[in-house]
């Protein structure tokens, strides 16, 4: 177990949580181990009953997620509606827990502190990668998605190519736009320490900065970079990718273990019944 890697952890944790969910059912006298689906369904009703009793929620009867909707295809505002993988996942989790789903809009770099402080939201659901720094502040659920890092520049920028990106980006002439508090900012700082970093609270502004010429490159999670480039910023292209294998998970206050368990149970159910894969398929197109 000691040599367990992070990827392994994902599957092992998934399996464990699944077993835990089933075990929970088995302890109910009425339940037998015939059908997983029945067991899961019953599990939810139990969860629901327990939730009201022991899980402290910001708003009673509703689970409030803090989200920074500047991160398609994970979270984005379209005509005032929250759309994206995380948003669908949040609604599915809320449904599993028998709670209403509420989203509250926060800048990304404020989400983890807000969850750590409590009071504003029950959980952070905003493409948050598990990092040791964040783990010190909040608890993370089981991961639900794995993403990597990417760097994009203007397509018209011939100085930075796929062949020389790693070296050229690490020079003093480069300005790299990142989202404040993101793993993209950490990645750029570690791999391109000589470049200047320009941090924006909103990730979309980092792309705008590259198009506007305020920065030479933008660095962030691959799925988001690809989505942004496929949409409004078709004048940019990806020059560098790195398989960092970051795991996205839901952040929960350290004192709220009951909610973490409930969310983990819901994710395990959604994973087992294929909903999670479905949501990923529909949102990632």
């Amino acid at each position: 177990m000691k040599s367990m890697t992070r990827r392994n952890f994902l599957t092992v944790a998934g399996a464990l949580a699944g077993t835990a969910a089933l075990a929970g059912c088995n302890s109910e006298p009425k339940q037998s181990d015939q059908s997983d689906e029945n067991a899961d369904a019953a599990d939810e009703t139990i969860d629901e009953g327990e939730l009201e009793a022991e899980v402290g929620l910001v708003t009673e009867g509703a689970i409030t997620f803090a989200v920074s909707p500047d991160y398609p295809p994970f979270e984005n505002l379209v005509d005032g509606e929250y759309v994206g993988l995380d948003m669908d996942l949040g609604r599915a989790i809320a449904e599993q827990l028998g709670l209403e789903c509420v989203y509250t809009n926060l800048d990304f770099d404020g989400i983890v502190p807000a969850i750590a402080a409590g009071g504003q939201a029950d959980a952070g659901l905003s493409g948050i990668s598990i990092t040791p720094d964040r783990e010190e502040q909040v608890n993370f659920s089981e991961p639900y998605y794995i993403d990597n890092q990417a760097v994009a520049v203007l397509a018209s920028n011939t100085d930075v190519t796929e062949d020389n990106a790693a070296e050229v980006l690490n020079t003093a002439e480069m300005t790299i736009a990142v989202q404040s508090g993101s793993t993209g900012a950490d990645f750029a700082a570690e791999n391109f320490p000589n470049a200047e970093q320009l941090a924006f609270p909103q990730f979309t502004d980092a792309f705008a900065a590259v198009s506007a010429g305020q920065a030479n490159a933008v660095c962030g999670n691959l799925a988001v970079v690809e989505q942004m480039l496929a949409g409004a910023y078709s004048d940019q292209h990806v020059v560098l990718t790195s398989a960092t294998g970051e795991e996205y998970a839901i952040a929960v206050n350290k004192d709220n273990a009951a909610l973490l368990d409930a969310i983990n149970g819901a994710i395990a159910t959604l994973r087992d019944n294929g909903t999670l894969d479905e949501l990923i398929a529909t949102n990632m197109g």
Partner: protein
Amino acid sequence: MNNLSPCAPARHRGSASRALLAFMVVLVALLGIVAMPAARADAMEAVKCTGRPNSEDDPTVIMGATESRITFEASIAEGEGVSSLTLHIPDGTSFGTDDLAVTLLTGDDLMTRNELDYTEKVDGQDLTLEFAEPITQEGHLNILVYDVFFPADGGEMQLEATYGLTDGTEASIEGIPSIPVEGISFTESLSQWLEDQSWVQAWNSNRFLHLFFDPALLVTSFPVVLTGFFMSISIVAVAFPLAIPMGLLLALMRISKLRLLRGIATTYVNIVRGTPLFLQIYVAFFGLPLAGIQIPNFVLGVTVMCMNSGAYMCEIFRAGILSISKGQTEAARSLGMNGAQTMFYVILPQMFRIVIPNLTSEFIVLYKDTSLLAAVGIMELVMYARTIVASTGSITPYIVAALFYLVITLPLSKITRHLEDRVRGHRTRKHADAPELAAEKGASHE
């Protein structure tokens, strides 16, 4: 090598330099040959070796004695069968293996992650990975070592790595880039010392105190936020003096007899005062460059603040000018002064004395408003505080930022009050009402 040295000078005794050159060429070639066998067996080559920056002061600096992470990546040639790898972590550096992550990246773009089955062994500074299956696939072996604490003094950290192949040969990986580590900063070491103190731990066990007044964080965020403080101050220090002539010009235009000048100034002032500064910043930072106007960030920030403040100052100056009694103008004109002379020698000197309190409060407003520039990536006071809040989850850096604002605004508002009293004292009760009204106007747009 000995057999070669006589042969080169033997041919051209006269041309010593050519001989030397030839000798060098042979030498280099020979060295190349010596190195060749190793190069051929170079199943693995270093790709990168970095440490995770851990300094709050500078996001790219790696400090000693503070938690970091080593990322080591080496390429593996196809079919080599790498069965073990030993990383020699520099002496004085401690590391953990609980979160160790070993991944083989494969595929054309190296974006496919393969988990490896391995057992690790730690012997002093040596971290040995024995792979259950020898790695024969072409790709990059990526290793993350967590819980790394570099020596407190810093220095160039040189990792060494050796690997074993299935055929039993061992070789070392050459050309591993060293990791530049800086000595632990004074504030960081003070903060770490504070964290170990029992009274600090007791203090932090109170949730509220920990979130808002964590002593260790107060210490670390102070120098960082100070950098932002200088940025904010320098923006105001340039923008404010520039806004004064601009405001004055606009004010003169607004009271001008020419309708065109009046119209331009009024439109400008109304638009700037009628829209949020935040919006103006966005338009300037993302709109202007799109329109092909490239201005450095700092200059652009100063320009926006100056143009915004100019509109408010225009109203302050206009109110000031209008508050000067009509008798002053009449007296000046009767002395034979023309309109411009009256304005510059009689009206404006009196006006300035009246508007100084309002200008001071405008300065306070401008200084506080620089925080809005954080949204467009200018590293000012709030932005620095924000980055630490994001990485620590405590609100303490914001409290530090608040102190940096108060350090300027509290004395200034005291001065403003003093100046207001003086203005009032010099004038009759009736006249003093006008500047007071203007003062309220100036303050109301905060």
